[in-house]
């Protein structure tokens, strides 16, 4: 059996098995635990109540990202409830002796899913967890990475393990060459449009094919980030030269001879020829166009060249009702061309699209242009302090500012509006984030998910526009 071809997921799972019961319930070992202020306070409290310690201090990398303000950070957090949550993390870090903490005023602070890879704290072959569903992002590094609830956060803190059962395997192959102006975001939105928001439920997704291999590490992170929007807790991509090159010299990555040794192991982290998957889905990259969501679920997505669908044509009554409700919430009429939808705000940021490559791409569209008169606010929120600084070194901040964008401090910001960055009721936003749920960006707010390039193009046009005509 030793020669049985294995999937990448099989390899990662097997390497982390501490023990397995006859019914398949396993104890799996967790290498990296990312911690933020929202889902950790009750876990730390649970440890305290039971008199338990952290099993492995060095597995933890913590930051404050959800509640932090993106303006005037030196003045602290105005909202006392938000402030208490961040201060509670600050205190728990000291109380439990955590070493690696990028607090609100640390130059390396940022969105937890941006700073993990940026620091080399996410490595191939690891299991990575966080009390946050977008932990799937880290699977871009051939890691098994998934979101957990607060009880499991506490479980990992106390035992370095999780009780789990192996998921099914889903291979999503995207072959061919994506056209100009078609990004990682468009690829993953097209995937979700095809398999649905529950299409990956119960599965770990491996993204493969020439179009995925052609993506940068940033692009692969964007794709894996949204695996959860297709219902899969984990998404992953095989390790290759790009993976190894990206990690060289990062603060938490191994150095020198140890790096070479690690890299030799990392190159084995791919699915073997002949490995079998429970399900395979194929997409043609050349057929994918820039995507825009029209509804209140990421699966409610279409091409920029398309129009708002007609619920009357849907035969499934539950689906039809959901479409009608979504269109009512979104304030859209069936048949409206996507390119005719005017917007009020633009948000470029979030763990999906706030890395340096995203900012470069958006700046490339914005350069020498100005946001339209009907845009009330266009903001760029870098994913981390280091991304922000790099962008400033490259002069991207000046391009955005000259075009009428605001240039903010790093954090989750208006992806979910736990800080003061929110949509007002009825406001329509072109957003590079990951969820268009009702109220996600603020009660009554209307979110359309797009790529950074498409968000930039929408800011300039004041409505959705086909970025391919601008490039």
């Amino acid at each position, binding site marked *: 059996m030793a020669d049985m071809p294995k999937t990448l997921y099989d390899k990662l799972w097997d390497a982390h098995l*501490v023990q397995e*019961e006859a*019914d398949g319930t396993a*104890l799996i*070992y967790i290498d990296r635990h990312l911690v933020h202020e*929202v*889902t950790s*306070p*009750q876990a730390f409290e649970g440890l305290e109540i*039971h008199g338990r310690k952290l099993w492995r201090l060095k597995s933890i990398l913590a930051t404050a990202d959800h509640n932090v303000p993106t303006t005037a950070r030196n003045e602290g957090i105005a909202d006392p409830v*938000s402030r*208490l*949550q961040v201060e509670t993390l600050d205190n728990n870090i000291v109380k439990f002796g955590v070493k690696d903490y990028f607090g609100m005023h640390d130059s390396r602070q940022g969105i937890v899913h941006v700073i993990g890879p940026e620091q080399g704290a996410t*490595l191939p*072959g*690891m299991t990575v967890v966080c*009390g946050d*569903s977008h*932990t799937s992002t880290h699977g871009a590094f051939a890691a098994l990475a*998934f*979101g*957990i*609830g607060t*009880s*499991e956060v*506490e*479980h990992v803190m106390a*035992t*370095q393990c999780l*009780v789990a*059962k192996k*998921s099914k395997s889903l291979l999503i192959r995207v072959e061919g060459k994506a056209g100009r102006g078609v990004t990682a975001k468009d690829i993953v939105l097209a995937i979700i449009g095809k398999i649905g*928001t*529950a299409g990956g*439920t*119960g599965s770990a997704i491996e993204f493969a094919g020439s179009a995925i291999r052609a993506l940068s590490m940033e692009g692969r992170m964007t794709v894996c980030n949204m695996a*959860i929007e297709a*219902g899969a*807790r984990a998404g992953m991509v095989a390790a290759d030269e790009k993976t190894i090159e990206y990690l060289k010299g990062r603060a938490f990555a191994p150095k020198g001879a*140890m*790096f070479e*040794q*690690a890299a030799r*192991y990392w190159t084995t982290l791919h699915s073997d020829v002949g490995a079998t998957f429970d399900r395979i889905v194929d997409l043609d990259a050349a057929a994918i166009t820039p995507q825009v969501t029209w509804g209140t*679920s990421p699966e409610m997505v279409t091409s920029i060249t398309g129009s708002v669908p007609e619920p009357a044509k849907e035969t499934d009554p*539950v*689906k039809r*009702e*959901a479409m009608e*409700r979504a269109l009512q919430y979104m304030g859209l009429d069936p048949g409206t061309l996507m390119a005719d939808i005017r917007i009020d705000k633009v948000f470029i940021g979030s763990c999906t699209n706030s890395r340096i490559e995203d900012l470069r791409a958006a700046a490339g569209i914005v350069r020498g242009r100005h946001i339209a008169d009907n845009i009330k606010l266009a903001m760029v929120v870098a994913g981390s302090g280091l991304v922000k600084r790099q962008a400033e070194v490259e002069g991207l901040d000046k391009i955005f500012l000259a075009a009428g964008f605001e240039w903010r401090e790093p954090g989750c910001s208006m992806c*979910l*509006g*736990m800080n003061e960055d929110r949509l007002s*009721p009825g406001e329509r936003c072109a957003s590079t984030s990951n*969820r268009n*749920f*009702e*109220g*996600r960006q603020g*009660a009554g707010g209307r979110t359309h998910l797009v790529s950074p390039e498409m968000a930039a193009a929408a800011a300039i046009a004041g409505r959705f526009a086909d970025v391919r005509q601008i490039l």
Partner: protein
Amino acid sequence: MDPFRQHTGLVAPLERANVDTDAIIPKQFLKSIKRTGFGENAFDEWRYMDLGEPGMNNSKRPLNPNFVLNQSRYLGATILLTRKNFGCGSSREHAPWALQQFGFRAIIAPSYADIFFNNCFKNGLLPIVLTELEVDHLFNIVSATAGLQLSVDLDRQTVRVPSAQVYIFDVEDSRKQSLLNGWDEIGRTLRHSDKIKSYETARATREPWLFN
């Protein structure tokens, strides 16, 4: 964790698919550092006519009369009947906390999002999976029968409609035992401390860069 064995209670139908955790408990309430106090804000944006914020006196807020859980026939419901992919989206355990603190002990749906499903079991809230057809039947019965109560028996894995049919549901045995007994999972895992330590030793030999 509180055990779950049997429960009989009023059923409320939430006729929506893909109910996400942002709907179950909106983000502004996640700022709490406690495990309690979420029930009054369960489904906040659907349940109230105004915008909810932490610290409000919820008893003074205007209720949305069209929201099913506000209708008098469903007041006091302890079993939530809903559609597929319930609990999709964020990993926030505040979602099962809010449902449980609202008063729910069990949920019935054709499917759930993975993280939410897992989180329910950690809190003694039983997410029952029935087929689409069975859920359709239950929706019909609930709408036709005022005050309908269902009886859930986890040990026997049954949902019983009074003087009518019994539905059988599947549940993984490990999850079932944990719920029936109200086990402290961390305590149970820590009984394997030696195994975890020997795993770490072996792993440090294979991948020494992880244990520097």
